[in-house]
């Protein structure tokens, strides 16, 4: 299941990259920082990421993530793409 949720996250990243210049693409890596001091994503990118991932998780896996709750939490799901994939996978598996 982790593979499936990762696929959804990378699809969302691909959508975000369509609106970014070629020299400012978001790296598809689990280590890429989403929020916090070392993040290269601006607030618009984060808001769009949250909306696209939530929409895709609902339409593909019928799971509601409610990521907006995680936005202010430095240790939450939106630290890196790796933590986001873990969080989404846990929600899908009902943990």
């Amino acid at each position, binding site marked *: 299941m982790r593979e499936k949720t990762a696929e959804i996250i990378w699809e969302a990243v691909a*959508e975000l990259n*369509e*609106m*970014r*210049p*070629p020299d400012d693409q978001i790296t598809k890596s689990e280590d890429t920082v989403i929020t916090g001091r070392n993040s290269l994503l601006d*607030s*618009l990118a984060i*808001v*769009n990421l*949250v*909306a*696209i991932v*939530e*929409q895709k998780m609902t*339409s593909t896996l019928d799971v509601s993530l409610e990521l*907006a709750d995680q*936005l202010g939490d430095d240790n939450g799901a939106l630290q890196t793409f790796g933590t986001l994939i873990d969080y989404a996978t846990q929600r899908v598996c009902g943990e």
Partner: protein
Amino acid sequence: MNIRIISDFNAETLAHYLNNSTGMSTLTAECAPFGQVSRQLLALTQVPKDSVNNPGVVVLWTRPQGIITAFNEALNYARPTRDDVLKQVIQFAETIRQAKQPTSAVFIPAWTFPPHYRGYGLLNMQTGIGLRNLLHEMNLTLSRELASQKDIFLLDAERWVASQGDNAYDPRLWYMGKIPFSSGVFKTAADEIKAGLESLDGKTRKLIILDLDNTLWGGVVGDAGWNTLRLGGHDPIGEAYADFQSALKALTNQGVLLGIVSKNTEQIALEAFEKHPEMVLQLTDFAGWRINWNDKASEVANLVMELNLGLDAAVFIDDNPMERARVAESLPEVLVPEWPKDPLLYRQALEKLACFDKTSINPEDTKRTAMYAAERERKRARIEFLSLEQWLNTLAIEVQAEPVNHASFARMVQLFNKTNQMNLSTRRLTESELQDWLTDPNHCMWTFRVTDKFGDSGLTGIGSLFFEDNKAHIIDFILSCRVMGRDIEEAMLHVLTQHAADKGAKIVEAVYLKTAKNKPCLEFWQESEFNCKKNQTFEWHLGNAYPLPRHIKLKWDS
């Protein structure tokens, strides 16, 4: 090109798509601080046209409830009167009209509702009650109020929203970022706005070059004959091909030309057009064709050249992916859209192409195919004569010169923005910029209409003068490639020099400004009677009248 986005919501996503998508590399979009629509529009009214603060093009995208307070009350079922709402819409239109002055164009996405919004449900389309009914009226009022204003375009945003279905509006984006639409809506909007900008820039595609077998009809005509083709009839595939042809024919009414490049035996293919009872397109609907066994990329280039167009004006449609790839690789300026395998989707694929947008429609557009058919006849007649002079003498050419009049503005702007080859200075102007230029008493402009025994070519030439002391400068010298090479150019110079003399000028001067495409213009001036000075400057002393070619009958009131 610079774009400023003025909105009552966070439209950064649109700016990102405009800045980062392929196609228009020189485009720079920026968002004004959102939620300050009236202030931003009022600020624009203070900006001089030549100021560095002039944003160029403005995209004004608002939510109806964000800008029309009476409509916001209506959304809360407070029932303000319809007149209150429409009065505010009229006021908003007036603010837009004033803000338009310094800009080159304003694009206004029409107001929309989320698809899920039910409002009064059963009564939502009822006049006097329904909110969707009211919103339609608001859009129509805005459109009507701005109709007389040139270069303000109300865009069909309802289609952008519909294209994304239930995902068009995302409350998450609104609550987290004050973004009312999903990224899909903004992406569609960016594509449409870019198509509009290209149209303003004169980069509209003018020609669709079509394959025949399995593109215009089902089956291979050379193998089985015209009577076996799938076209029309009680057959979904045949009906889809006939429908595709109808859509192509409809485009010709907007001035888009059709051409054929097909690997076939010409006689067999043409027989299908003449004999098939359900053939929608007739040979007279095509500006030209190349039906033979040669390489298609070469034949596409040959046909485009024959029609005096640039490769960047052409679209190539072929069911065969190999042929599409060959043309796309060899002629990168030609637009080669991906084409569906299923003929039932052909018409939809054609209608989705956002490359034929126009800033206006004028009578010349609807006659364009007939003009090319007349040109084919001229060329056929030309072969029968030994010399060019003999041929010109038989054409009975009439040139009508007229001072600029308002009714011709749309066609003139089209000529300004699309003519490349016979264009002295290649000034690109919007309708309002043209209007501004003409307000200077030292400026004057003439238009030229051309007819001959084969037909009416319409308004095909523009010449303008700027008077300074005893000199008249030719600023614009533009002639459509459709009528080049018949000495219309000489007749234009006759009129311009005569007019300059009447106004007291002693010398007429023209400075050629080189572009990648206007070498034919330089060649004309070098062969004209004007004296060639250095730096590609040409001069005529008005002691003598510039000669009018004997085979041209000139109609003008000097």
